[in-house]
């Protein structure tokens, strides 16, 4: 399934995909383990990538371990292909591998992303690689790694529910900003990375494989295709995915996640955060109008 690409790449002084083959094997083993135990955080050894830790190096390590010559890579940051960090990561993989890159969600075999899941329906065989700053959903409640590991082992998630209860009592709010914890396969709670809660439903029974990489914290975890994913919530206080009301001023979409923008005159409006989704809609409209 994953082509092996040993040997020096002709255009780059580095190995294909930058990492050496021994490191890739270590990462692939960790990824296989993560897929076998959905939602479990698998430790990996630390490896520096040419971007600073905290800038997507966990995602980059997964991508580097998986990418082969037949892959087509898409990189987005905040949903945008042309965001500066996405551009920088895409340039890096174009430099150290022969793989093609794309901005089309449909065409991509690997999509590395920060803080968003594409709007378009993902398909069988696609791999979504999410960059994760903090892999532990209970870290803000319990600083000790030893303790949180034990809590996961005993499936003791009381503190997550207590925090949710306190939020409801104090703010009348059942969470749902970003990084809202999800229960994977009815077993492990995971941090979905700081995606807006609007995106959480896309994790549930997705046909695509979702891989999460935390570079600084050296963890990999996975949501395999078609796995049940539930939001942290109470039965009588259901989870609400919020979204601003408005329309994209470029493509007119009201269903997609919107970014607020304003021009120099202070005029405010919205555009799709998913640039590829927005462009596809506009293309379709143009072609439809022309015929």
């Amino acid at each position, binding site marked *: 399934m994953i082509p092996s690409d040993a040997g020096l790449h002709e255009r780059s002084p580095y*190995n294909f995909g930058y990492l050496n083959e021994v490191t890739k094997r270590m990462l692939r083993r960790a990824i296989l383990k993560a897929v076998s135990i959905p939602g479990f955080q698998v430790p990996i050894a630390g490896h*520096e990538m040419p971007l600073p830790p*905290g800038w997507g190096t966990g995602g980059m390590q997964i991508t580097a371990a998986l990418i082969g010559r037949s892959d087509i890579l898409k990189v987005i940051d905040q*949903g945008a292909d042309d*965001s*500066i960090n996405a*551009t920088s990561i895409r340039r890096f993989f174009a430099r150290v591998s022969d793989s093609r890159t794309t901005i089309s969600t449909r065409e991509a075999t690997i999509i590395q992303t920060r*803080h968003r899941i594409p709007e378009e329906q993902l398909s069988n065989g696609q791999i979504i690689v999410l960059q994760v700053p903090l892999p532990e959903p209970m870290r803000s409640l319990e600083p000790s790694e030893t303790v949180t590991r034990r809590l996961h082992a005993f499936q003791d998630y009381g503190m997550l529910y207590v925090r949710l209860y306190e939020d409801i009592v104090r703010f009348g709010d059942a969470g749902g900003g*970003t990084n809202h914890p999800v229960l994977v396969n009815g077993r492990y709670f995971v941090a979905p990375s700081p995606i807006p809660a609007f995106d959480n439903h896309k994790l549930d029974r997705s046909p695509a494989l979702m891989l999460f990489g935390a570079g600084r914290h050296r963890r990999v975890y996975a949501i395999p295709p078609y796995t049940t994913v539930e939001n942290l919530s109470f039965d009588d206080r259901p989870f609400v995915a919020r979204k601003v009301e408005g329309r994209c001023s470029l493509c007119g979409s009201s269903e997609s*996640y919107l970014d607020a923008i304003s021009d120099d005159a202070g005029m405010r409006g919205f555009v799709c955060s998913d640039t590829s989704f927005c462009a596809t809609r506009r293309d379709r409209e143009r072609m439809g109008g022309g015929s």
Partner: protein
Amino acid sequence: MLVAIRGGEQAIENAERLLAERRRGDPAIPELSIEQIGEQLSLAVDRAMNEGAIYDRHAASLALKQAQGDAVEAAFLLRTFRATLPRAGYSEPLDTASMQIERRISPILKQAPGGQFLGATYDYIHRLLEEKSPDGFEPLISSRAESGPISAPHVADQLACDGIAERLPSAEPKTHVSDITRDPVMHPANRDLRLQSLAKADEGFLAGLANSTLQGYGQNFPLVTEIRVGDVAVDFKIPELGFAVTIGYVTLSECEILNKRLDAQSAEPRFTRGYGLAFGCSERRAMAIAVNDRALRGRELDEAVQCPIEDEQFVLSNADGVEAAGLLQSLKLPHYVSFQAELKRLRDIQAALTQRGEDAL
């Protein structure tokens, strides 16, 4: 129409070009050579090698030049270079007792067996900034050349034999030593993983933590048993030969400390020990590592873990300068999606509270 402003490929290329210009500075001033950096800024090179976790003076000099002298950036460049190198194998354990000593002091002894050598140190030099470069010095006729290489046994070994200092388990060659470049650091972490993590940690952070415990955060006030700086042979077992040969020498700084806290577990109470080792002439670093090492041994010695320096997860997960700088600076990445989502939540909560207030009236 409203258009979101985005940076792209062109912006990155321009930034790269501008940076190259800044790095070079005024073209009328001669460019620094790698050799000049290696020879004349050797302590900066040593620090880059330590925090870059690779013993390569040329690469470290190059990294410092490319990083405009920034220690964290230089270490980062060395780390990414190192991450691509295959591992050829593991050397034999270094024998620092056979170090060819350039400097060696033992502050707890008036006379140390093997002698005390001040070596090249800033310790007793008055730190006065001088405009004129000290180029009028007379070269020192090295007494070492006459007397040959000096080596001396470790003071701490003698103290252990005398029943004063804690006795270390003898180095069993077959014992598995963890490797942080291959094994994940899991908590609780054993001493091999801790010492490896401390070896590449940010020196300022280690010195700060060491200072915290000297100031009373934890009972870890130490005495320095010995500091030594010099060259040590690296022996590597060649499979085809079946025996080890010396493949090179590395300059190392080593520090051993004693802690007056006694080992409560053993039948015969003794002073406990801490250990620090660093590349190059880096004795401040080796001392900081030794103090941190001792403070982190609480679990092993059945002591209460109460202060930041004694908490291994706190120390190990924050001590790496490259990692800390990376996460801190990742706040510069775009966060408009998360901000938007949190803002929406805030507005909803505010609206709900206003509604509640109106309903109460």
